[in-house]
């Protein structure tokens, strides 16, 4: 700061990006995923067959598709609890359209459009009225599913066209399912959106400090609204995939999924309070959850036990960095 020293130029960074990536959360997750993969392949002789692995992907791709958009929403400091409710209403609307003789493209459009409308409804309540998103979406969670209960009662829509089955049951090549390819494609799109565009940067800024972001010219409400819409559309896409896979619509469809989606996001290293996290982490977390549930399924572990293990896994992985730090401090002393 003194006058006689020349003005200095700051270095861009101290650590190389490669080194930073090595010590990042996704790297740790990747190690966990590989460990689970190896354990699974020893635990069950059926695990390593291509078809078994392909089946495993169906366990998580639909939820993971929503998790991609949810990750962005949570980074921005908001949340959407109503995604499973959106699946229910989207699927129901597709069923209604089916009754009017809609063809496959129309069904897909109806599913995604319903999702978009629901997301926009959430987004408008949050950004226009300034209500907290957790309250709004707990409300709309019941609202959306309630509507499908009113329309369907204890009935179910069946008889979706043959061509519609492709989305949830079709294979693109050999054992590679359409769902899986779609998920990977969307993951790439969301990776670019979050990490490579201005829009993604705005999301981080908003999640860290919405006021400073607004004061820096970021249109905070608009960005958040778009994120709610994206989450709605992704729930609509998940509704198309799930309805197609099941071949029917019941009002209880996808019940409880919101927690699994949020678990994926949190396990993926996204700060539940907003501001940090990556798509890579979310994608790996989705694989981890898929591998664990599928592995346990092969071992005939009942569903209740499975959810206990998933819960323990979540807490364990989240606590891992803290535990490692404590261990390191202990060793230093």
């Amino acid at each position: 700061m003194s006058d006689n020293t020349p003005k200095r130029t700051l270095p861009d960074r101290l650590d190389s990006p490669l080194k930073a990536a090595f010590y990042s959360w996704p790297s740790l997750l990747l190690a966990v995923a590989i460990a689970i993969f190896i354990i699974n392949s020893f635990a069950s002789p059926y695990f390593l067959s291509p078809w078994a692995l392909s089946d495993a992907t169906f366990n998580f791709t639909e939820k993971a598709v929503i998790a991609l958009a949810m990750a962005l929403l949570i980074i921005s400091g908001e949340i959407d609890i109503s995604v499973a409710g959106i699946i229910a209403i989207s699927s129901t609307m597709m069923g209604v359209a089916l009754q009017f003789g809609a063809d496959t493209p129309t069904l897909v459009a109806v599913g995604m459009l319903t999702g978009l409308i629901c997301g926009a409804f959430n987004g408008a309540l949050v950004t226009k009225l300034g209500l907290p998103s957790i309250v709004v979406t707990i409300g709309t969670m019941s609202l959306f599913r309630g509507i499908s209960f009113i329309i369907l009662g204890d009935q179910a829509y069946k008889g979706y066209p043959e061509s519609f089955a492709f989305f949830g049951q079709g294979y693109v090549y050999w054992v590679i399912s359409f769902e899986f390819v779609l998920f990977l494609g969307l993951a790439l799109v969301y990776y670019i959106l979050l990490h490579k565009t201005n829009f993604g940067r705005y999301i981080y800024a908003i999640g860290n400090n919405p006021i400073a972001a607004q004061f820096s010219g970021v249109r905070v409400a608009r960005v958040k609204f778009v994120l709610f819409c994206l989450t709605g559309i992704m729930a609509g896409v998940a509704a198309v995939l799930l309805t197609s896979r099941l071949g029917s619509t019941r009002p209880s469809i996808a019940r409880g999924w919101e927690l699994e989606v949020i678990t994926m996001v949190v396990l993926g290293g996204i700060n539940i309070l907003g501001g940090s996290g990556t798509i890579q982490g979310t994608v790996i977390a989705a694989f981890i959850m898929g591998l664990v549930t599928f592995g346990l399924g092969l071992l005939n572990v009942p569903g209740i036990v499975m959810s206990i293990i998933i819960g323990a896994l979540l807490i364990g992985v989240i606590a891992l960095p803290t535990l490692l730090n404590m261990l390191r401090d202990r060793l230093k002393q």
Partner: protein
Amino acid sequence: MATPKLTLQNICKSFPGVKALDGVSLELYAGQVTALIGENGAGKSTLVKVLTGIYQPEQGQISIDGTSIKLATAHDAFGHGITAIHQETVLFDELSVAENIYLGHAPKTKWRTINWREMRKAARIILDEMGAQHIDQNTQLKELGIANKHLVAVARAMSIDAQIVIMDEPTAALSHKEIEDLFTLINHLKSQGKAILFISHKFDEIYRIADRFTVYRDGQMVGSGLVSETKQTEIIQLMVGRAVDQIFPHRKTQLGDTILKVENLNHPTEFANINFDLKKGEILGFYGLVGAGRSEVMQALFGITKTSSGKITLNGKTITPKSPADAIKAGIVYVPEERGTQGVVTDMPIFQNVSLPSLRKTSRGNFIKMAEEFKLAREFTSRLDLRASSLSQPAGTLSGGNQQKIVIAKWLATNPDVIILDEPTKGIDIGSKAAVHEFMAELVEQGLSVIMVSSELPEIMGMSDRIVVMNEGHIIKIIKNNADLTPEKMLVIASGMDETNQAGDAA
């Protein structure tokens, strides 16, 4: 001289890339006020956190009355009778005054529940003793102003019979009268034998209240002594490591055409009938007491506060900024008073903070180009002589003065026409202050126009070409700054007592 109450020796504390405290020491004496002086980033705040058990030093010794102690947690510090009153007081808005005073050590009934009556009574006694008769122990804290909150914090210190009281810039947000009250209270604490650490940037305060001083620079102790035996210039020299020219930068004022014209701007409650213009290359000072509506007018220009009527013309075009994004696009930028909450995104790296409003320029077709961002950040941070270890360091890890530089760098990168600075040097040290002033002079010489809101008279009178004086939401007068203008005159006008008052009783 007596032995010190509290002694710190050879304290070291580092953060990634920065050595915040590098073997510093400090002595506090019972019944005396020791002023801790240093520029932003000298390590004062870190030291306070070490003393209050929030940070653990890697090295060094802390002792009270000659016995070595360890402050592993905030609770430890509390137990050793150390208490701190912070810049932004850390109390609980939703709790009552009495609860705030006795939180954690409330008197109990025999059933181990809180004895509310006893607690209120005890709180009353402490407040009365301090001369704070006007504070009701039953009001919610949020009802109180910042000055009274400080008093509650002091009352809390008294309630645990704290022997060591740390005051971290307690006067930063106080009015003249409130500062007087605080000093009376400090003298009261002194007479009770408390050892007080007083952190302030204001030399008049230090000379009035402190007995001793200790100066830190870049994480090291560079001097200490008795205030009465040391000249102010000597202390300043210790602080910055060189003699500081306290005169404001000279500049050739070359006013151009009117760039910004504000006509009849109104707000339902905060301000009314605001008329002024700003010329190219001008520094227009906005002076007034806290609450005069200056920041609100600025925020209206920046699209944050909605106006009820009025016309804003920039470069001959009428603009209606509905959001900061609109204002920035038009060419008006705003450096807010609250750096930490409104200025920087603390967890984001420096370069991303700088590029945030300019992303459209540094990206191609909305795709981030990080190399361009680094280039932009490098250019503007070096122009402002930012001090950091790298451009990837989170902005929040820097000192207040350096955070301010990031905010200014961020705006300059947008190439604005008008830059509004709201209390640009509030809470930053002399060295950084001079740098900001020099920089402002440089900006207007390059043809930028500056609006500067400030409550500091020397700054207003030292920097402005013209001064807009506001009081209670109205412009009282717009004065040309020349040799005839004295601080006394300014104060008279600002308080609304000027007889030649022309805007008159617009209310």
